[in-house]
């Protein structure tokens, strides 16, 4: 419960943060600290240096950019939850942010931290997938934009390389604004045992939480949804490509059942009719 010793540095800008990382090597960026610090306390990770990006105001914003809404990586879950712009344009994101942990967690945790941590059990990665967001990654060599489906590479591993920062997440606006999020857990404050995010409208998407080693975009089910298939067919397709496992909360069989059941419920809640 006590982390190994480390040095603490505060970054004053995105460029400064990237430069500090280049200088120190064995470092980690610290955003809200709500995933990183627990891992350090359990000594699962022991970086020699923490580079605090938590006060970079330049990375905290929710902007209307015409065809999309741009969210700065340092935006707190609570700010997403309370944003009227998001409520109007990207309702799924605002709602899902409100389902993360408890108010203390939402006041500290950032969308960038949640996405880069890449926990398959986390809520915001699935929302980003269902919303077909794209991620702006900034490094010493400049910026690149990676679509959400290519972002989550492996268990707790994303397209963000060592020393790179996720700086912005872009959420395309769409004609349809109907969506639903079904999160199943045993306690209100917990990570999901399974959750399903559904976004209807043009270019719809379905994504699953905790159904494999990474946040999971349900390719077949999303295609079926785009094709207007019956809800039961979409629910049947939702398990394609998943890799659920057994743990103390659930068996694989139960998770798969939940994924189908929650997909059916999410489609109904979103008002989907084929």
């Amino acid at each position, binding site marked *: 419960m*006590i982390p190994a010793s480390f040095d603490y540095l505060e970054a004053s800008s995105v460029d400064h943060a990237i430069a500090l990382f280049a200088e120190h090597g064995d470092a980690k960026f610290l955003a809200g600290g709500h995933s990183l610090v627990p891992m350090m306390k359990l000594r699962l990770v022991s970086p020699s240096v923490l580079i605090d990006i938590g006060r970079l105001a330049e990375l905290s914003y929710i902007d209307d950019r015409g065809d999309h809404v741009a969210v700065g990586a340092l935006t707190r879950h609570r700010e997403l939850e309370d944003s009227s712009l998001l409520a109007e344009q990207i309702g799924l994101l605002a709602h899902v942010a409100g389902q993360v942990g408890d108010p203390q967690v939402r006041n500290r945790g950032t969308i960038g931290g949640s996405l880069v941590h890449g926990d398959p059990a986390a809520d915001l990665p699935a929302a980003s997938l269902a919303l077909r967001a794209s991620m702006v990654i900034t490094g010493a060599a400049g910026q690149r934009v990676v679509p959400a489906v290519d972002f989550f590479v492996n268990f707790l591993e994303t397209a963000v390389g060592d020393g790179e920062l996720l700086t912005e997440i872009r959420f395309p606006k769409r004609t349809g604004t109907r969506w639903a999020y079904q999160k199943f857990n045993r306690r209100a404050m917990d990570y999901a045992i399974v959750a399903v995010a559904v976004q209807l409208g043009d270019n719809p998407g379905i994504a699953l939480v905790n159904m494999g080693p990474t946040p999971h975009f349900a390719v077949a089910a999303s295609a079926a949804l785009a094709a207007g298939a019956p809800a039961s067919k979409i629910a049947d397709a939702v398990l394609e490509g998943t890799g659920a496992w057994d743990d103390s*909360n659930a068996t694989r069989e139960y998770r798969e059942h939940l994924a189908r059941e*929650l997909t059916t419920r999410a489609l109904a809640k979103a008002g989907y009719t084929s």
Partner: protein
Amino acid sequence: MSLIGARVLRKEDPNLITGRGQFVDDLAPAGMVVMVFVTSTEPHSRIVGIDTSEALALPGVLAVWTAADLDGLPPLGLPGLGRPLLATDVVRFVGEPVAVVVAEDKYLAADAAGLVLVDYESLPAAASLTAALADGAPALHEVLGGNTVFEQPFDDDLAVEFAAAPHTASLHIVNNRCAAVPIEPNACLADWGPSGLTLWATFQAPHHLRNTVATYFGIPQDTTRVVTPDVGGGFGAKINFVPEYFLACALSRLLARPVKYTQTRSECQLLMYHGRAQEQDVDVAFDGDGKLLALRVRVTQDQGAYPDPTGMGLPVLTTAMSAGCYKIPKVAVSWRNVVTNTTPVAAYRGAGRPEASYLIERIIDIVADQTGVDAVEVRRRNYIPADEFPYATHSPLAVYDSGNFAGAMDELLTLFDYDGLKAEQARRRDDASKKLIGIGFSSWLEIAAFGPPGSLEAFGHLASWESVQIRVQPDGSAIIYTGASPHGQGTVTTFAQIAAGELGIPFEKISVRHGDTATIPQGIGTMGSRATAVGGEGVRTASVRVVERAKAIAAHLLEANPSDIVLEGDGFAVNGTPSRTVPWSEVAWKSFRPLEIPPETEPGSLDITVFQQVPNFSFPSGAYCCTVEIDRGTGEIEITGMYLVDDCGTVINPLLAEGQVHGGVAQGIAQALYEGITYDSNGLPQNSTLMDYLIPAASDLPDYTCGRTNTPTPNNTLGAKGIGESGSVGAPPAVVNAVVDALSHLGVKHLDMPITPIAVWNVLKGAQ
């Protein structure tokens, strides 16, 4: 004016909610160093070697001890089965301290602990009762010749009664192992200097600890001081003598520095003694009308790796209370205590009684199910009638003082529409689109007021009374010193309430102090729902004696006869002559001045100490109902109603009594639906952090609808029974009965706790 029954706000809270409480970890005397454990990662292994050299070489590390350094520090607990302060030759559970490190600060200490290398040679482990009792099971303690520490066989196993009975049923129950999870994990700070030893500890019974520590080290009690500052919850898990207290003292003596130990949350889950961990085999005989004819209970108590004196007593309490609220012609009990490669087991809120209420209340529902008689009606047909108290049970320990079980059930049924809900339940069963409804009852009863002579001595305490000293100050305010050592109960408030009415001194001018053996008369402590029923009675007794003495002084000052003096307004008056008065402040002031008191009176006489005894336990009781809805698609259980009728006799402060019920019920719901420490077959704990040991939060708990009946105890003049453990006794059977009821049409008779969504879904899936 009496404040008994008043909803007074807690005197304790302003400090606590402004962050001004003081807990052990807040203390940091000059020169303090920090102690941490190296704990076993193995459930059962021989220690081949421990290499402490790297840790010792770290700058800032002052000492690293292993079992080899324990010369003169004997094991704790039962002779022959004692627990060494550090695992000696063999480790017997994951989390058992193997070495102890002291360093200048906690970060260094943590780093150094990581550098201690322990070489283990695995032994086969027995991490469950089944494994420990199997033929050829690995033996934990060679002296035992098996793993059973003690066995109490049936006197008469009622074979004749069962053979003749028209109906019988049997049930095997697993009462899940729970962690107490106080908000403050274990902590202590030992400072052994030339003038003596002071030990600050988060503990429920400071004098008990002081006396034990002094005896252990062979030092006098007068220079040994234990202080329990603010204590962040105990739930029974802070009355056990665990190695950290003794090691901190020994290391402080060695290093001549104050030594602090503060458990981390994850250590707390593994090191702090667990509760429950019981299996029961229950048989019941009954007639076609649901009248109980005979009950046979066999309890197997998991003691964990080292039997603790309190843990050994748990099945005694369970078997004493097995018949619950019911008049059962024949009851037979038997129990055994068994060691396993797990964390030791001792008291946890209710300690043995929740296990009893759970078994009998589950059995009642099984009788209802089998006879087709309504669950409430089965209870009514078997209640001990209200006019049969005191009621002698099958156990000499349990002579029920008073109760009105049917009255509590009547009150409960006014809190919600039982018939309407039953009709809705039937409708829902036929409509697959709707959630299932379940209704579960418990008519429970428990033992409180641990206080009759002999009751606590059996657990190693000095005696079973509680101490109270009242000292009136020269300005007419009063300080109450008590050996009851609260850790969240609100005793500072309730004792002041009791005293205010008796003394005629305003509540605001009464302070209650506790938790320091240097200033408090020898006391016992807070456990077994005893503080109010024993200590509170002591407050009343002492107050009456103080007033008697004060009246003598007032009579002298008013030139009247003491028997004519009455308490009135802010002091004393001559009965019938309201103009002749003297305020408390004047009586108090003059009580210290030899020239102003009656010649036969000594100065400072308004100082009374009592060691309050009570003749019997009290038996709080009540009737609870839980209603649930079950999601057919996911197995999710939602508690939709929690109706709670408590009878603890006289209520001193309804706000605090309800607080105790709310907290106890929360822990009861937790046991029923969320919590349960599990080990895999190799003895590795499966949920030893709060990430996977799920304690429900406020957002997961329902609103409670509280009712009350009042059957005073004859054992004290207050009529108060104790309410600290009631909720955790009454809630689990109500919740489980509700879930089983919701699924009963699918043939479900029983589900073990915690009942999780997946367990429910497995039932629903099987039914499709």
